[in-house]
């Protein structure tokens, strides 16, 4: 928690809003929206209001490395415009390549000023993975490698938010053979709290919920074993899927153009990864709650899970097995092994009768002898 009192250089969020001409009523609306994003109950509104009235706002540095900016795109489209306003205007995004007005040396200077003035206090958001191959030559900004920038900025960060699958698990660029040695943030930075917000991209509302929690309360949200906020990643897409009754009833789409697909049956057999994927897509949905992949008739590809590119194919239930060609899955290999076992057993049975004939004949003769005696 931040203990130092608000100062002229670091006003509170409420003071910022007031200075911009917003009323207290607007302020309370914002607090309510934010509470909803964080998944808090209605009493949480008061906590947020108090935090935003009393805590100095947190500076944020937002870095972009190996990524496609889909996380930022998702974030700035989170459903309520006031949220992106709040976040973009109020969280004092001191440096972010995509959205800052400054460029070149001025931008670099702004970043360094934040790092120096707020050492130990700023939040570091990282979008993208860090290539460690070829001394980091695959991603350089301002003459420095991504890894150098990450280490410099991480040193004074209060906490790190790893945005998206790139920063959390390497995403597509870390798929085999991972030519640039794309590395997720938690493997490069130690000793700092890291919140992992996976997804390609993460849901905008989830990103808003996470960052708002961090900047308003100055604490980390509750995280699971994989460092993900429990509020958004504790349930599988499967558990909140509106097609789940079809799954339990065993009513499956067999191919994308069949009658079952038109009726909206479960997409399990055409490769839906919902049963293995932890995310809130089924509840928060996408594009202001309009839809999500399964609702649009396509299975979940598991974009928020580690290694999802290599755990394909997307349109089959069974994973292909590494080292046995593209199409061989565990069942095919198992069946081949069972057939080989059968052949081995047949050979062994024949061998037994040939090699152990004396023993076997003895047993038979002995048995026959006893039979006669009775």
């Amino acid at each position, binding site marked *: 928690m931040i203990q130092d009192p608000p100062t002229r250089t670091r006003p509170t969020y409420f003071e910022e809003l007031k200075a911009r001409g917003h009323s207290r009523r607007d302020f309370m609306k914002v607090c309510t929206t934010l509470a909803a994003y964080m998944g808090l109950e209605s009493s949480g509104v008061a906590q947020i209001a108090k935090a935003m009235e009393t805590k100095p706002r947190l500076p944020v540095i937002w870095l972009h490395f190996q990524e496609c900016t889909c996380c930022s795109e998702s974030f700035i489209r989170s459903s309520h415009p006031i949220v992106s306003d709040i976040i973009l205007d109020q969280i004092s995004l001191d440096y972010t390549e995509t959205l800052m007005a400054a460029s070149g040396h001025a931008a670099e200077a702004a970043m360094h000023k934040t790092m120096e003035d707020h050492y130990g206090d700023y939040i570091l958001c990282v979008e993208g993975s860090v290539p460690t191959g070829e001394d980091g030559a695959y991603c350089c900004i301002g003459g420095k490698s991504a890894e150098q920038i990450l280490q410099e900025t991480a040193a004074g960060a209060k906490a790190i938010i790893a945005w998206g699958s790139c920063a959390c698990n390497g995403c597509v660029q870390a798929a085999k053979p991972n030519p640039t040695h794309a590395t997720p943030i938690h493997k490069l930075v130690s000793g700092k709290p890291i919140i992992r917000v996976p997804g390609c991209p993460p849901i905008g509302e989830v990103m808003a919920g996470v960052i708002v929690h961090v900047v308003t309360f100055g604490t980390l949200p509750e995280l*699971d*074993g*994989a460092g993900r906020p429990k509020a958004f990643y504790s*349930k*599988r897409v499967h*558990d909140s899927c509106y097609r789940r*009754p*079809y*799954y*339990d*009833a*065993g*009513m*499956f789409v*067999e191919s994308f153009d069949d009658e*079952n697909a038109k009726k909206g*049956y479960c997409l*399990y*057999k055409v490769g839906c*990864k919902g*049963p*293995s*994927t*932890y995310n809130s897509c089924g509840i928060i949905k996408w594009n202001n709650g309009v839809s999500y992949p399964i609702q649009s008739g396509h299975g979940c590809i*598991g974009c928020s*899970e*580690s*290694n*999802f590119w290599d*755990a394909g194919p997307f349109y089959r*239930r*069974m*994973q292909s*097995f590494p080292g046995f060609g593209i199409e061989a899955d*565990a*069942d095919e*290999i*198992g069946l081949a*092994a*069972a057939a080989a*076992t*059968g052949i081995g*057993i047949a050979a*062994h*049975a024949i*061998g*037994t009768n040939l*090699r*152990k*004939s*004396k*023993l*076997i004949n*003895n*047993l038979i*003769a*002995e*048995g026959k*002898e*006893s039979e006669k005696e009775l």
Partner: protein
Amino acid sequence: MSTHALRRVFVWELPVRIYHWLNALAILALIATGLIIGDPPAIRSGGEAYESYWFGWVRYIHFVAAYLFFFNFLFRIYWGFVGNKYANWKNFIPTSKAFFKEMWEVIRIDIFLAKNKEHMAVGHNPLAGFIYFLTFIAFMVQVFTGFGLYAAMSDSFIAGLFAWVPAFFGGDFALRQWHHIAMWFFILFAIVHVYLVFYHDYVEGRGEISSMGGGWKFIEEEAFQHEETREKEKV
């Protein structure tokens, strides 16, 4: 031709036999339902979802069988400390040089089919014992991966104990894959296991197959003498 005088030996105690058949039942149910869960057949394509719950029942049977399998396994570990000498854990985990020596003997006689030879082990032979030890490890892999997958959809305390497993394996994708691959170990094991029971019954004539019913094996008088001389040598 030689004749054998046979003596009745109580090898498998009742708890061991109950364990064996519960285990067989649970594994059969788990494999059958597991294969269906992995690749469900296209049974229904009409009507409403609320009219049926067949896939839910298949999964339910899988979970019930999993609990049975798990507690049965825990019981067997316990029995490895309190059961008779054929049930003892030392049959499974190699603790002496002699264990490896005998294991090699079994490989020579039963796998490479040394001409007209047979070995004298009464309970588990050392090779079988060691392979059962490997199956226990496979049991644990299945319990950890299975309950790890189950933890996300269960509020039960036992499943909760395994909630850390998905993160350890790097997510449910990998976990599911390992769970599925490990199943094939059980299938291959069952095939070889059943064959070898028939093989031993056929070559040794000691009632190998029926021993898991009544617990008895019928052992040649020579084996007892052989054991006596071994005891004397030890002294």
